[in-house]
């Protein structure tokens, strides 16, 4: 990255409790520019964090800054945030464009400017041909899109998307993913929560993982995986004679386990993967084996998330 990282959202020792129930517990985090994925199990505090970021909730303790300013009671900042909520929040009898237009009006736009903004937001989300129809006739995917259009209509600098993919079909997911990427390229910062980790991972490697109201990891997925020293790394090797390779590997002290998982594949367990990556090509060449795949088996967001939530739970 050549540009200077600017904190888009800054949480400083933020806690939020509802009566006796804790929503967020002493969270300090910085969310930078670009797309950031917010992941965590149900009830982990994702919605609380989003609510705080939008100034909908007031932190019980701590300070939260968005785009450098406090958000609570600060319309100037709030007008730069676009939000797509998870649930259905519709006036079902309105048409798509009336709905978006109404919300544009709420954010202070009027006249031709408003009409153009509505049209543009609807076009971006691919809803142009359905904008004249009442929302009650929309499919789930169309409802998601119109909700996103509504979040985009006032050209916000920060987009907060709570489960934007729920209910959309694969084609829709693909298109929405492209939309978010292109927005990010244009300089819009995006905070996106999703239960479907593959999708978040396809959008960004910057993650904020929370569980039980605490941040359990933040930053790049691979960096996070690298810091988990208590977990041996797993490397999958697809090779023509796994048994021969296994015998040889078992003799190395950097390797803590070898398992033959298929007639043409084995899994290596090691605490020091870098050394294995360094030595593996040589070993395979010496033995005259034909390799068809070498891959880290547990560096995906899903694997990392699974480790972390089990540890914290």
């Amino acid at each position, binding site marked *: 990255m050549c540009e200077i990282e600017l904190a888009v959202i800054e949480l400083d020792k933020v806690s939020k409790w509802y009566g006796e129930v804790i929503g967020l517990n002493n969270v300090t985090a910085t969310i930078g520019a670009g797309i950031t994925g917010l992941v965590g*199990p*149900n*009830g982990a505090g994702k919605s609380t964090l989003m609510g705080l970021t939008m100034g909908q909730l007031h932190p019980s303790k701590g300070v939260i800054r968005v785009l450098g300013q406090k958000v609570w009671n600060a319309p100037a900042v709030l007008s730069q945030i676009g939000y797509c909520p998870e649930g259905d929040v519709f006036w079902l009898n309105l048409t798509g464009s009336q709905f978006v237009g109404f919300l544009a009006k709420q954010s202070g736009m009027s006249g031709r400017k408003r009409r153009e903004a509505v049209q543009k937001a609807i076009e971006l989300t691919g809803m142009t041909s359905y904008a004249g129809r009442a929302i009650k006739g929309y499919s789930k995917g169309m409802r998601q899109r119109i909700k996103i259009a509504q979040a985009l209509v006032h050209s916000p600098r920060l987009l907060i998307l709570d489960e934007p993919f729920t209910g959309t079909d694969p084609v829709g997911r693909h298109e929405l993913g492209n939309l978010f990427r292109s927005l990010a390229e244009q300089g819009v910062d995006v905070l996106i929560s999703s239960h479907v980790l593959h999708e978040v991972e396809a959008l960004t490697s910057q993650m904020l993982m929370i569980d039980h109201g605490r941040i359990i990891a933040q930053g790049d997925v691979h960096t996070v995986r690298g810091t988990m020293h208590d977990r041996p790394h797993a490397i999958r090797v697809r090779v023509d004679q796994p048994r021969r390779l296994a015998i040889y590997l078992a003799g190395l002290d950097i390797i803590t386990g070898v398992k033959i998982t298929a007639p043409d594949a084995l899994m290596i367990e090691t605490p020091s993967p870098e050394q294995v990556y360094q030595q593996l090509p040589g070993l395979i060449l010496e033995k005259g084996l034909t390799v068809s795949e070498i891959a880290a088996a547990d560096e995906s967001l899903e694997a990392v998330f699974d480790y972390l*939530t089990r540890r914290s*739970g």
Partner: protein
Amino acid sequence: MTDAPANRVHRYQRWDGELNKNRWTWLAMVVAGVRLALKDRKTRSLVTTITMVVLGACIVLYVLSLLELLAGTEQGKAIAEFVHAFLGVDVSEVSRIAEFRESLWRVFFLLIIKIEMFWVLLIVALVGPRLIASDLKHCALPIYFAKPVTPLTYVTSKWLVVAVFIALVTFIPNLLSLIVGVLITGGLHTWAQTASLGLDLVLSGLSVCLVGGAIVLALSSLSSDHRYVAVAWLAVCLLPVFGQTILNNLLPPESTTGWLGCVSLRDNIMTVTDWLFGMREALESSDLPAEAFTNALLKPVKPICAATVLAAWTLAALVLSYRRVVKFSQTAANV
């Protein structure tokens, strides 16, 4: 709190039992329906209240029987005066009570049934609207129609649930109090006198079950919001009563004895019940003080007209509910 306690997966175990041919599915559905309805506090307290009223009815019968036993004594006179003041029925000639016991009881039950029509209105408004509406609201129909349940079984079972509740507030308490009354007065003689009354009570109760159940079922299948259904049910029952009153006042009395007298469901049911009980003939043939019973009888309407109107309503309602359910069973999976 997460979606799964742990990734603990038991091995799936197959089951080697036999499925029966769904002969008793309807019964399971009725039992489940009745139990669900009884979970509602209002429904439970209404049913309890009505049981209390049954006890009250038994007491009245007991008083009548007492009169019979105490005929001629001072005590008997005192009770007779009390009854006269309270019910407006002159029973001073109690020594003759055994002769016209059946008529007296018939009048008594006719009064009770008239009151029960109000309870039916309430209990159906509580139990009926949710029957299909709730399944529609929670999209539960695919559960039924992915299992070997036919629309006919579904409609019948739902209808039986309302029918059970209507029966609980109509002929079941009536029969109970009749039996208690018979036991108190005792003797085979009483049995013989009142057996046909028992049958008439069941028949009149069943007609209420059939008509009320079918109508509320049809209304319930039209909306997914049970509150609308409850309002619609009350409207269907109450508005025609007012309409009939207006008609009766506008038109000459003789023109409202035919079809024009059959607007109100409740009045129709009462007409049919009157006819079942053979009250009019019984009163006309007896030498009882007729003015004592005029309250119990409605304006004369041809029973055949009333019965036809009721049958038409029921048939239309059942056909409508069945067709709606068939339609829902087909669109259970949304397109």
